[in-house]
């Protein structure tokens, strides 16, 4: 370049600034090494568990696994002609939409798109997720109903969903409907609003759903749908998975309103006085209390004083108290990102305080709050100690029908298996860990994506 450009003139005069290297490079290598070591440890952990766990988790068609399958009383239906037709066909029709989605996301800037097309595509991409949930539940439920059918004297129960509908009665019928119909429909409704809520529609969730579906087809259904057993090859995670699901739903229902309410109060209502400072300090201290102490609190308050017994409800309430500080802090951070000018503008046109919060602050902070909630739930899924303290059992050979039933959760089941001396149990513990980590991975990925997608730069 010619020396006439201003920048060239400047560099000609300025001394060349360089940071001396010295030991710097070596130090950086050491630091990188430290990180690599910790990451390798994490990797080793994953590989170790994957190798141990794969044996039980996936059907390999070996004689033993066939034999075991024959011996087990619950003979789960593998997808037969009818169910392939029912679910395979829509999937075959829907998969091209993913292709379309890829193309669209690449070209999205060039599309002048209508909001309804946007929503329709969001709807369709969530459909496989809904189907996945449906199959998962119906297959879980069918194991339950075959047993139920046997108990009432119907011997030829095959787990066919239509037969089950015919035989189910009362509460069971409601449960079947909830599991098989309402939940997937709820997911669809969520998908309906998914794409227009996000500024950049995400491929990742539908992608995860498809992968999960494929993995599911190869999974050994016996592991996910068997009750615990004294024989490792027959033991399964069924009651633990359903127990976790029940507990998580109640935990979220209790903790989310309480945590978000406290955050809204502290950020939007509270004056800066000793009271709000005390609450704030208190919340940060609560976050540092060891989880087992929450377990003892739950044991005394929920199990003994309120007489919930050792039930799902007691476990969920304990867990809700445990994760509440996390939800409060993350919701507060979400509320702080909404700039004051938003509030002032709303006040200036005469909105009341609740109107400002409801219509102007919450909609913008909601994504962040939900993210914090998902992270809190993923913490709760992995927690074991408080549930052991309140006395959740490890050997549950039935399903929790109501919130007052005994229950177990995945980490407790894993803990139970790890502690047994036989190596067969160690293998299924690893299988259980894979399932648990997959669930956590999906939850954390969802949280991270939501955090990125719903963030608004002011």
């Amino acid at each position, binding site marked *: 370049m010619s020396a006439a450009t201003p920048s060239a003139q400047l560099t000609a005069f300025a001394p060349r600034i360089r*940071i*001396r290297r*010295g*030991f*710097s490079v070596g*130090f*950086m290598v*050491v*630091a*990188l090494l*430290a*990180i690599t070591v*910790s*990451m390798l440890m*994490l990797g080793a*952990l994953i590989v*170790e568990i994957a190798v141990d766990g794969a044996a039980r988790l996936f059907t390999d068609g070996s004689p033993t696994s066939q034999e075991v399958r024959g011996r087990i009383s619950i003979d789960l239906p593998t997808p037969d002609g009818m169910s392939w037709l029912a679910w395979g066909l829509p999937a075959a029709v829907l998969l091209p939409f993913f292709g379309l989605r890829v193309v669209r996301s690449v070209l999205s800037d060039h599309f002048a798109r209508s909001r309804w097309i946007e929503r329709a595509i969001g709807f369709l991409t969530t459909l496989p997720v809904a189907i996945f949930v449906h199959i998962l539940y119906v297959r879980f439920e069918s194991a339950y109903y075959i047993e139920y059918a046997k108990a009432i004297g119907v011997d030829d129960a095959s787990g066919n969903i239509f037969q089950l509908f015919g035989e189910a009665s009362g509460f069971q019928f409601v449960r079947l409907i909830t599991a098989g119909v309402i939940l997937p429909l709820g997911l669809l409704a969520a998908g309906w609003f998914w794409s227009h809520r996000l500024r950049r529609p995400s491929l990742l969730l539908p992608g995860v759903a498809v992968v999960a579906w494929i993995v599911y087809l190869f999974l050994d259904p016996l592991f996910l749908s068997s009750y615990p057993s004294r024989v490792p090859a027959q033991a399964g995670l069924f009651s633990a998975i359903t127990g976790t699901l029940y507990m998580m739903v109640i935990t979220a229902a209790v903790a989310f309103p*309480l*945590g978000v*309410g*406290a955050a*809204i*109060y502290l950020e939007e*209502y509270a*004056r800066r006085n000793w009271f709000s400072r005390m*609450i704030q300090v208190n*919340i*940060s201290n*609560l976050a*540092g*209390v*060891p989880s*087992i*102490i929450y*377990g*003892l*609190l739950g044991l005394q*308050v929920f199990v*003994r004083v309120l007489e919930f017994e050792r039930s799902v409800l007691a476990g969920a309430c304990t867990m809700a108290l445990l994760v*509440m500080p996390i939800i409060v802090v993350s919701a507060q951070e979400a509320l702080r990102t909404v700039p004051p000018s938003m*509030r002032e503008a709303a*006040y200036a046109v*005469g909105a*009341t*305080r*609740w109107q400002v919060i409801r219509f102007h602050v919450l909609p913008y902070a909601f994504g962040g709050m939900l993210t914090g909630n998902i992270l809190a739930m993923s913490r709760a899924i*992995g*927690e074991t*100690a408080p549930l052991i303290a309140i*006395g959740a059992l490890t050997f549950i050979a039935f399903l929790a029908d109501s919130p007052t039933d005994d229950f177990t959760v995945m*980490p407790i089941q*894993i*803990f139970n298996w*790890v*502690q047994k001396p036989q190596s067969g149990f160690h293998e299924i513990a690893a299988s259980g*860990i894979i399932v648990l*980590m997959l669930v*956590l991975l999906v939850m*954390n990925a969802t949280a*991270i994506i939501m955090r990125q997608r719903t963030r608004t730069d002011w």
Partner: protein
Amino acid sequence: MAAQAPRMDGPERDTVRSLLAELWRDRLQPSRPGSGRETPVGRLVHGVLFVTATLSAFVTIGIVLVLIFETVEFFRQVPLIDFFGSTKWSALFAEKQFGVWALVWGTGMIALIGLAVAIPLGLMAAVFLSEYAPPRVRAVVKPMLEVLAGVPTVVFGYFALLSISPVIRDIFGQDVGIYNALSAGIVVGLMIVPIIASLSEDAMRAVPRSLREGAYALGSTRMEVSLRVVLPAAFSGVVASIILAFSRAVGETMAVTIAGGGNPQFGVGPLEAVQTMTAMIVQLSLGDTPTTSIEFKVLFAVAMTLFVLTLGMNIVAQWVSQRFREEYE
């Protein structure tokens, strides 16, 4: 020429001002509960939200009351000197001894091994992330540390028992037990690396750029800047992160229960089985302990000790980070 807005001055201006101030004070100002524009629904919401906020205080009160209640019951039957003055623990034997030091020994050893693993790894990671890493690397490594922090502790327990312990036995000979404090300590260390790394990194990034630039201008290398300028400047935050990590290691439960073994003894070495306070609580909870028995009550006495220890460390961490913070402008 554009028409100018009429200028107000004198008494007229003051009147408008006071009117506006009055309007703001009585009708609009959002930060004064009860005096702003609020509908009955708004007031109801305000009340409900207030209750949810105070709930956290009740949780703390609940914890303290529950712990104190049973602890007092315990000390009615067992004198203080037997609890704090003895190093023998045998709660499940016929001849019961409740020397809490046996449990504190196990807890302390595992937490210290954990710190010995976590401080170098965590600080290195923090220095690297804040001083060396390009933004793209940082954007990848930091979420990975978060993932490490999110792994359930049961998983770490499995890892310690079935992966680390065999390696330790290969190194130190097969007479080392499968349950030992070292393997539990190492995984506890891995567990608290993310705490040290992310909190220290936050503290280091808060050090103003001008300090670094000043040091570079004097000809320092990047390592000198990292270790002699940034690290001392962020020292309070780093120390606070280490104390917090220590408190987390003390309160950690499942991994030490699985891998530590159940051997509450004072003075055993790192290659032997130990039992921590938390592991003891789990052990007693797993058995069906009658709620009137002394074993049930000692559970709360130990939990009280644990609670006071961790709470004390958390408060010290907060105090350190505030008291010794280097203030820049």
